[in-house]
């Protein structure tokens, strides 16, 4: 039987990235994937004839371009296309569009509030300053603050230097920022509720927090710190859907000699004498490897795929208590035409990008209240995108697919487990809300795929359907991610690593977690590093 140098569990984009870099360094790697298709949450699936849904993640801005460039992902078929125009809708039907010109944007804000139009400049500068610092850490392994190893001390000093370079005042502001709510943060800048709601909405996406909950300000930043070709805050689509990212990385991986096995779910990670030695597949097959890398989330890895007796005391509890609450659902809709929205001009650059059904700060908070009580939100916050208006390959010409990210949707309902009937009722809630802003919307629906946390967990394997593989709050960020003392991708079992979004820098299709983990593995193997540094040094 073949013994691999490394087995990576899960063919999501981070697992594939990790494997690609290990293969590039000359390792004999195997990626095992439970589904019959690869991609994890970065997938494209033809769910209806001619319609290709990005079933889970749907937009992209965090993808490290140094990795894109280094793995030559364009050659492997990946093209990232920016899209334009997001409209936000208020409860009263009021709308605010996003113009692709600073002047038009300013004029619009001035019409709402001259004060806010002015404050926007300071807001953007402050966000850019915060984002710039975090961006620099994305392709770096967090230092262990309690360690005295030269590498950790050096990295801590670097981090301290970066923080100090903000200046004393901003340093205090920054530390405050990490624990603030999106609402409190925005109150310092804006007075208009729709502007605040529009800005606050990224602060709760994928997180079991409300806009008034401490910690949501950082999540806001996490969503705007990405970029498309240096346009910070811009969002892109992968041509052909998010699966194009996974497929390009997989193609780079196989070019370097790596192997991928689908329909190969892992039952257990095998541990012998305190060392990971391989995996047992669901079908009973045993595979051996010098190294096992889990791209599954921390909770799933330790509580479901390992024997409790193999773990040092405390780790099991840490994993069990890892904050990975499911809070969102997804409704993918095939449409026979482009939906028209009330109070949105027929301007092709703004009427077909994204739609943010935010309502108001109050409405978003009420939506969160439902989640707390174990119900899906009756008046949910929906973030929609119509990728087919920008990518000609994902729907038949003139017809469209609309991705609707829905917040909030609990993993377990107060009145018992999810059923197909409840799932469909949840879907109805979503389309009812959209219909309110787009009369006739329902008549355009050709096909619909409703995904609650239950479906997301069952299909992708994300615990509770949490899109970030663990929440992005300060207690689970940087050297705390996934657990304090284990933030450098090495796990308590020898020869075992983690490379998924449960590790630094967290959720989002960035490839950073997988690449950082590969770098650490290569250090342990005393092999030359194959992982690039980030491109953003002089910004």
């Amino acid at each position, binding site marked *: 039987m073949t013994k691999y140098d490394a087995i990576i569990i899960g063919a999501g984009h981070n697992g594939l990235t990790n494997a690609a870099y290990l293969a590039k360094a000359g390792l004999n790697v195997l990626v095992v994937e439970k589904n019959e298709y690869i991609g994890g949450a970065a997938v494209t699936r033809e769910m209806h004839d001619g319609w290709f849904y990005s079933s889970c993640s749907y937009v992209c801005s965090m993808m490290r371009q140094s990795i894109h460039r280094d793995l030559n992902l364009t050659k492997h078929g990946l093209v990232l296309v*920016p899209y334009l125009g997001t409209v936000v809708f208020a409860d009263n039907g009021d709308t605010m569009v996003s113009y*692709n010109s600073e002047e038009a944007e300013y004029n619009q804000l001035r019409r709402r509030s001259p004060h806010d139009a002015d404050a926007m400049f300071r807001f953007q500068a402050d966000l850019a300053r915060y984002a710039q610092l975090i961006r620099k850490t994305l392709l770096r392994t967090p230092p262990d603050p309690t360690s005295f190893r030269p590498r950790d001390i050096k990295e801590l000093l670097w981090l301290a230097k970066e923080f100090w370079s903000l200046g004393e005042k901003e340093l205090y502001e920054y530390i405050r920022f990490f624990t603030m709510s999106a609402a409190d943060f925005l109150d310092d800048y804006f007075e208009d509720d729709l502007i605040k709601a529009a800005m606050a909405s990224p602060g709760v996406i994928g997180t079991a927090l409300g806009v008034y909950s401490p910690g949501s300000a950082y999540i806001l930043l996490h969503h705007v710190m990405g970029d498309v070709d240096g346009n910070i805050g811009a969002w892109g689509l992968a041509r052909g859907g998010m699966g194009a990212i996974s497929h390009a990385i997989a193609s780079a991986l196989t070019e370097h000699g790596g192997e991928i096995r689908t329909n190969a779910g892992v039952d257990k990670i095998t541990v012998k004498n305190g060392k990971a030695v391989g995996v047992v597949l669901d079908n009973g097959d045993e595979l051996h490897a010098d190294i096992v890398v889990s791209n599954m989330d921390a909770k799933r890895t330790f509580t479901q795929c390992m024997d409790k007796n193999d773990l040092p005391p405390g780790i099991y509890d840490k994993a069990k208590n890892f904050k990975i609450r499911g809070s969102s659902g997804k409704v993918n809709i095939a449409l026979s035409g482009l939906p028209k929205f009330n109070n949105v001009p027929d301007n092709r650059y703004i009427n077909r990008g994204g739609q943010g059904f935010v309502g108001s700060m109050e409405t978003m908070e009420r939506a969160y209240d439902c989640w707390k009580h174990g119900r899906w939100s009756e008046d949910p916050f929906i973030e929609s995108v119509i990728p087919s208006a920008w990518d*000609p390959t994902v729907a038949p010409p003139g017809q469209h697919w609309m991705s609707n990210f829905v917040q909030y949707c609990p993993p377990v309902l107060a009145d018992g487990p999810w059923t197909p009937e409840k799932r469909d009722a949840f879907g109805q809630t979503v389309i009812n809300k959209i219909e309110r802003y787009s009369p006739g919307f329902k008549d355009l629906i050709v096909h619909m795929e409703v995904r609650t946390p239950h479906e997301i967990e069952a299909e992708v394997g994300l615990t509770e359907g949490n899109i970030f593989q663990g929440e992005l709050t300060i207690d689970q960020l940087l050297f705390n991610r996934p657990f304090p003392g284990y933030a450098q991708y090495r796990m308590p079992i020898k020869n075992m690593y983690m490379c998924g979004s449960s590790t630094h820098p967290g959720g989002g299709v960035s490839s950073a977690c997988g690449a950082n983990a590969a770098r650490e593995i290569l250090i342990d193997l005393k092999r030359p590093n194959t992982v690039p540094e980030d491109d953003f040094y002089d910004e």
Partner: protein
Amino acid sequence: MTSSQVDIKDPFAGERLKESPFHPRQALLNLRDAWSSWNGYKFADYYYDEEYEYFCIRNSCATYDICPMQKYVITGPDAEAMLNRMVTRDISKLKENRVTYVCWCTDEGRMIDDGTIFKMGPDRFLLTCGSPSLAWLRKSTFGFDQLEISDVSDSLAALSFQGPTTCEVLKKMGLVGIEDLKPFCISYFSLGSDDNNRLMVSRTGFTGDLGYELWIEKAYALELWDKLYAAGEDYGIQPYGEAATNMARLEAGFIMPGMEFNEALKTVHYQYDQTPFELNLDWLVDFKKPHFNGRSALLEARDQGAEYTLVKLDIEGNKPAEESFLYSDKECSKEIGYVTSAMWSPVVKANIALAMVMTSALDGDIWAEIYYSKELRHHSKVAQCTFQTHPFWSPKRARATPPGLY
């Protein structure tokens, strides 16, 4: 209306730019009022956003107004012989309904301009180029009597239509069999309203992607526009300007006058113009054919070897090496060349450039000294450059017939 009447209404009429036949439609879409000029025409730098328009070229489809391009129809029994003496490539091999890329040189072998020749009939050619060339064409007829040159620059409207969905859009527009048109071939279609509005379609372009150029008499320009835009509505059609063209052509590795080469007839300083060899256009110069202009000077230039050679560079980091000097060492002590065009390539995710490098230094290291500014403060960095032998962007669909589904 006499010109004096115009003057009374608009005293600045003489200063205003000409408008292309497509202007009424394009002006509506130029939301940024980002106008530039080309050969006396009002010409868009971009319409909405240069990067968006660039992505339409790479992702969907987009039109570029090439009406300001210079177009000459050369007819008569001597037409072929005359053109063959003028350009460096052997066009006697060019078949009817084919297009070829050419350049022409001075007696000293310096490049005057590049362009394309369309063979529309046995004795009928269309020459297109960036700058007015009538005077040089006339000069080139010396000794040839049986030919006629007519400048159709203002009467023949043309639209470059580029991007992966172009073939589908043209099919939808009713151009039956367009998918079988091979690169550098010409085909004719009727637009439908009357017999005169014959549309010539060539599978050519300046983007390195799948694309076509559409040629029609000026009177039918708007009819063409409306039909094309109606068919393209669901395929992401968008006009693009100079800015996006410049991005796409650099990724394709195409040279631009005023960037990579200085037109010889406009060059003041001795040898500040270029030979085709310096521009890596050796393949355009055919010494096997009969005499052509600049032949002996070019033979000599070939044997001597070019002092500089145009190369494609992939540069580390993400700061475009615009107007950078190139060195053979990181310390920047020995200068070996200069960058002619540079950009961050959004599609390839690489920092790319075209550059003139001393041929003798091509085997060694190449370093670029890059200047950039950050919030008003200027910075510089030295970045290593790697040679690229192939175009940065060259999708299969650009060469395949049929091009296949986007």
